[in-house]
């Protein structure tokens, strides 16, 4: 048991040490992010006054919300098709494409998508490169994750519940709304959250498919990190860590409560 505790302690220290460094030094007074010179929240103030960063954050949140919603719709349709339709024509290709989206290096995916968007630029009514193309790229990435989660949830789900409802005279639509949907709702919510975080974090796809004028938060953070350290980035990171942890903890709490209620 003590060996297990030692391993847990060491690996968690490795996983959380760097994050702790970010949080601690976001409250450092000096410009140097390496030497402690006193507690201060000045970098948070400067962060909020940094218009370029705030604009990028706003754009990123909008892109993440839209692309996660699209990804959830497309991904749950895909997950349903794979889990419930049995064999259909092109199934292998369809499943293969979804899996490939998950594993392909982002540099390849980004380059390929950009080339297609450039070709589509000539189409009348095509929005051109910018926020819209980033949404399309992120929705494609996100839908593959949602499909995986929904498919897994549907494949270990007791179908006799649906059959019972049908036997009792419910229409297929009622069964779907009152039995199937509530049971897979946690998977849909989880999938949406994954797609949202992926979009909020992506720098590679966005850099390829974006056009002039659409700069997302990760693109700003990346160009700033290339130049070196910046206490404003520490402050931003701390806020993101806090919000992310809060979202996960409340999701865990909500799901746990649901389970207790249904017991």
């Amino acid at each position, binding site marked *: 048991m003590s060996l297990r505790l030692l391993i847990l302690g060491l690996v968690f220290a490795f996983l959380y040490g760097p994050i702790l*460094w970010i949080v601690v*030094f976001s409250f450092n007074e000096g410009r140097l992010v*390496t*030497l402690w010179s006193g507690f201060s929240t000045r970098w948070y103030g400067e962060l909020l006054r940094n218009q370029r960063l705030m604009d990028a954050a706003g754009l990123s949140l909008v892109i993440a919300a839209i692309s996660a919603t699209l990804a959830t719709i*497309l991904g749950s349709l895909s997950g349903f098709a794979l889990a419930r339709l049995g064999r259909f024509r092109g199934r292998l290709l369809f499943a293969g494409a979804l899996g490939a989206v998950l594993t*392909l290096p982002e540099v390849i995916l980004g380059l390929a998508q950009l*080339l*297609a968007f450039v070709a589509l630029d000539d189409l009348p009514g095509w929005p051109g490169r910018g926020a819209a193309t980033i949404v399309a790229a992120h929705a494609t990435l996100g839908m593959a994750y949602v499909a995986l989660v929904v498919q897994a949830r549907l494949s270990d789900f007791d179908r006799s519940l649906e059959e019972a409802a049908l036997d009792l005279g419910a229409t297929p639509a009622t069964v779907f709304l009152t039995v199937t949907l509530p049971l897979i709702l946690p998977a849909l919510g989880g999938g949406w959250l994954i797609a949202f975080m992926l979009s909020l974090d992506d720098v590679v796809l966005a850099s390829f498919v974006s056009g002039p004028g659409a700069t997302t938060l990760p693109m700003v953070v990346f160009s700033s990190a290339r130049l070196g350290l910046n206490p404003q980035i520490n402050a931003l990171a701390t806020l993101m860590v806090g919000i992310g942890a809060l979202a996960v903890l409340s999701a865990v709490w909500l799901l746990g409560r649901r389970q207790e209620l249904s017991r």
Partner: protein
Amino acid sequence: MSGLLRRLLVGVPATWLLLFFGLPFAFILKVALSQAVVAQPPFTPLFADGRFQGSLANFALLAEDDLYLDAILASLRLAATATVACLALGYPMAWAIAGTKRRWRAPLLALVALPFVTSFLIRVYAWIGLLRPTGFLSETLQSLGLIDGPLALMPSDVAVALGMTYTYLPFMVLPIYASLEKIDPVLAFAAADLGARPGRVFWSITLPLSLPGVLAGSLFVFVPSVGEFVVPELLGGPGTPMIGKVIWQEFFNNRDWPLASALAVVLLALLAWPIARAQRAETATARGLS
């Protein structure tokens, strides 16, 4: 299910994938066969004057110049290093979690996955702060008097391997845990009853039965590491030409879209088998953990 509903269920996402995933790959092949020109878009058309203009010149260039072969070899080497390091940390971690009381396992797994909700970019950024010659580790060791001058841990290959290990470690822990959890404890009891020591039980029962998880985890770490761009860009120096970085530079800095496409095709061919294998493992892991 009615025919129309079935068709919609597959048709809508399949059309989306065709448009934003299938079509793009047709274009990457097309552009890889064309030549760079100063124009908009910056590559020659594949058909002009009524005949096929494509050539394999870009691939010939990739074979000639050592830069590209070196980048591929460096990517494979660093990805393999990160995979082994993840295995060395991730296997004991998965084993330790699988051995705790049942009610502790879900929270511990959540703690392993939690860094994922903090931005990947931010976690790599943290390592710049720790590893720089004027960074936290170097300054701390100097003020403790353990070293004399600043310690240059980055930019270096070691920093890149460390960064990828840190980033992808949860990908290793989760599938190994899923396969360890499935092992019937009765097997270990039986072996112990028959006189096997704990070490023997581990080597002849636990380890062989967890190998599917080890393979899955290794693929989940190796595949994204080979094509990684952000980590070598931020933690590596000019001496770390990983292939993802070279594709980026050919595209953004040299504006040679055809050469970047040809490199992407080569990387794709290189990863085709591991990607296909990783897909089978993905579905299995998602089911094991849900």
